[in-house]
């Protein structure tokens, strides 16, 4: 349960964000379920409480502030803005009964595309400063690097799109890579289908398979069979490129020391260069604010299992020696989310949240 002391701590943290120049925003606790389901799919049902309103339909108890804050920003049309907020979020706990179902979040979000590296450092620094009274351990990541690597793979666009779609699902991503590199065998039924298609027209095969039931049309089925045929004719993703992806997933070292091995990888995969430039600029911006990229832990693939909207810089602050506690603060860049919610009009954005309730458990 949320304690009085948690609310006082939340108010103090919020004041810090206000002092940093942010505008206070409120969002509704009852959020329309449609938007969240569109973004996260069915998985959100396992994490958010769903309820039903007879007039407005399905609603969810706010599982997170970022989505409604982004929506409000995209609707009011402002370009550059800094927001802060504090309030309850609600999470279903199906696995760990000890974790709280309602708790406070205090957050800060920057919508500003003029200098993304500076904005990344601004948010990280603000959270780090707010957490200074407690002993915390920060770690960082950057999903933009993994995405840039996928974008540069010498293969078909459908294959790249499939990998991008599953960038947040580590096991599915690995399975796709295994298939595209030829490491995993093609299922026998797929081989059989492709052999049939070579002899007969796709339309005839579909007709013979059974009556057309359901909304998915014969056109769609035929289109996917043709896509499978094209895919089967593609050469595998090269060993060199697959190795770069593997190294990116495994890389874990201080931020400053990641730059040189990444530049080596970019020799094989030049699409990485702009993402590495952004990482280098961010490291410099963090150093200007007094942080130490020479020691700050960095792993590009970190943050893949969080809420799936971070697509660039990510960071997490944990309590050292307290593996039982969820992260004290998390944050990251979510440029793509703003264009999804802004129906194509995106604004580069980065933000972070602190959980004041957990700070109380540290004392």
């Amino acid at each position, binding site marked *: 349960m949320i304690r009085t002391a948690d609310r006082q701590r939340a108010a103090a943290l919020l004041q810090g964000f206000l002092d940093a120049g942010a505008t206070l925003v409120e969002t509704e606790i009852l959020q329309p379920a449609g938007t969240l389901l569109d973004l996260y799919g069915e998985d959100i*049902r396992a994490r958010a409480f769903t309820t039903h309103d007879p007039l407005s339909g399905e609603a969810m108890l706010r599982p997170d502030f970022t989505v409604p804050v982004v929506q409000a920003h995209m609707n009011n049309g402002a370009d550059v803005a800094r927001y802060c907020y504090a309030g309850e979020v609600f999470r279903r706990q199906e696995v760990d009964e000890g974790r709280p179902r309602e708790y406070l979040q205090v957050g800060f979000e920057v919508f500003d595309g003029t200098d993304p590296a500076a904005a990344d450092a601004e948010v990280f620094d603000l959270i780090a400063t707010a957490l200074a009274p407690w002993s915390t351990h920060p770690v960082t990541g950057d999903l933009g690097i993994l995405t840039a690597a996928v974008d540069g793979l010498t293969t078909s666009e459908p294959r790249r799109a499939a990998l991008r*779609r599953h960038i947040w699902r580590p096991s599915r991503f690995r399975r796709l890579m295994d*298939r595209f590199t030829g490491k995993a065998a093609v299922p026998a*039924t797929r081989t059989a289908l492709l052999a049939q298609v070579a002899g007969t027209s796709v339309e005839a095969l*579909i007709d013979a398979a059974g009556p057309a*039931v359901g909304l998915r049309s*014969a056109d769609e*089925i035929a*289109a996917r*069979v043709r896509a499978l045929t094209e895919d089967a004719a593609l050469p595998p993703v090269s060993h060199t490129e697959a190795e770069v992806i593997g190294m990116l997933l495994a890389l874990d070292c201080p931020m400053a020391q990641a730059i040189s091995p990444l530049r080596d990888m970019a020799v094989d995969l030049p699409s990485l260069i702009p993402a590495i430039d952004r990482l280098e600029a961010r490291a410099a911006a963090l150093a200007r604010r007094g942080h130490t990229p020479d020691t700050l832990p960095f792993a590009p693939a970190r943050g893949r299992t969080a809420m799936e909207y971070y697509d660039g810089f990510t960071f997490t602050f944990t309590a050292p020696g307290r593996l039982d506690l969820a992260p004290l603060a998390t944050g990251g860049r979510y440029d793509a989310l703003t264009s999804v919610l802004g129906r194509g009009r995106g604004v580069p954005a980065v933000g972070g949240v602190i959980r004041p309730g957990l700070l109380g458990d540290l004392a």
Partner: protein
Amino acid sequence: MIRLGVPSKGRLMEKTFDWFGKHGLTLSRTGSDREYAGRVDGADIALVLLSAGEVPRELAEGRLHLGVTGSDLVREKLTRWNSKVETLARMDFGHADLILAVPKVWIDVDTLDDLDAAAAQFRARHGHRLRIATKYHRQVREFLQDNGVADYQLVDSQGATEGTVLNHTAEMIADITSTGETLRANHLKVLSDGMIHASQATLFRSRTAKWTKSQKTDLDDLRLRLGV
């Protein structure tokens, strides 16, 4: 006295009685046909007759010491079922498989990998996620999440699930099938790796019920007789 919960009617009840009978325990209903009371001859056990769907909750709440129900019901109704009940015996009847089935005409879809790709294509084309009709929400969602399938949505169907595809209220189904006849009649086929859970009638022990010393002794005796 140990409290044993068993299904209160139909084939599931009869088969349960038969199973215990084979182990020398005579279970029977007492009183009229409408009265849910029963007795056990040959052991000091209180027999509770109730709907198979209520057994999981009663076990989890500790109101039953032992209970017979379908393993699918335990998985669907209890979070972290493993921590609340222990499987004592699979009873080898009441077999039912929870499976994923798609229209036979989907010649391009045979595996979960195919389904995931087809779901992405479907969403791009139709503007909404591929709908799966089911009443087994938790098991289906966990299975698809574990297997990295995205861009689907579950729609609730409490009966005649196989018909939802024909009626355009779903694109595919996740349902219990014992024979496969209904699937074929509705022009559906099972995905080759789409077996979510092979369910059967199962004897469970409650981990949350209070077990006194004499109840524990009774349980040990019972397990010896049942050979479980």
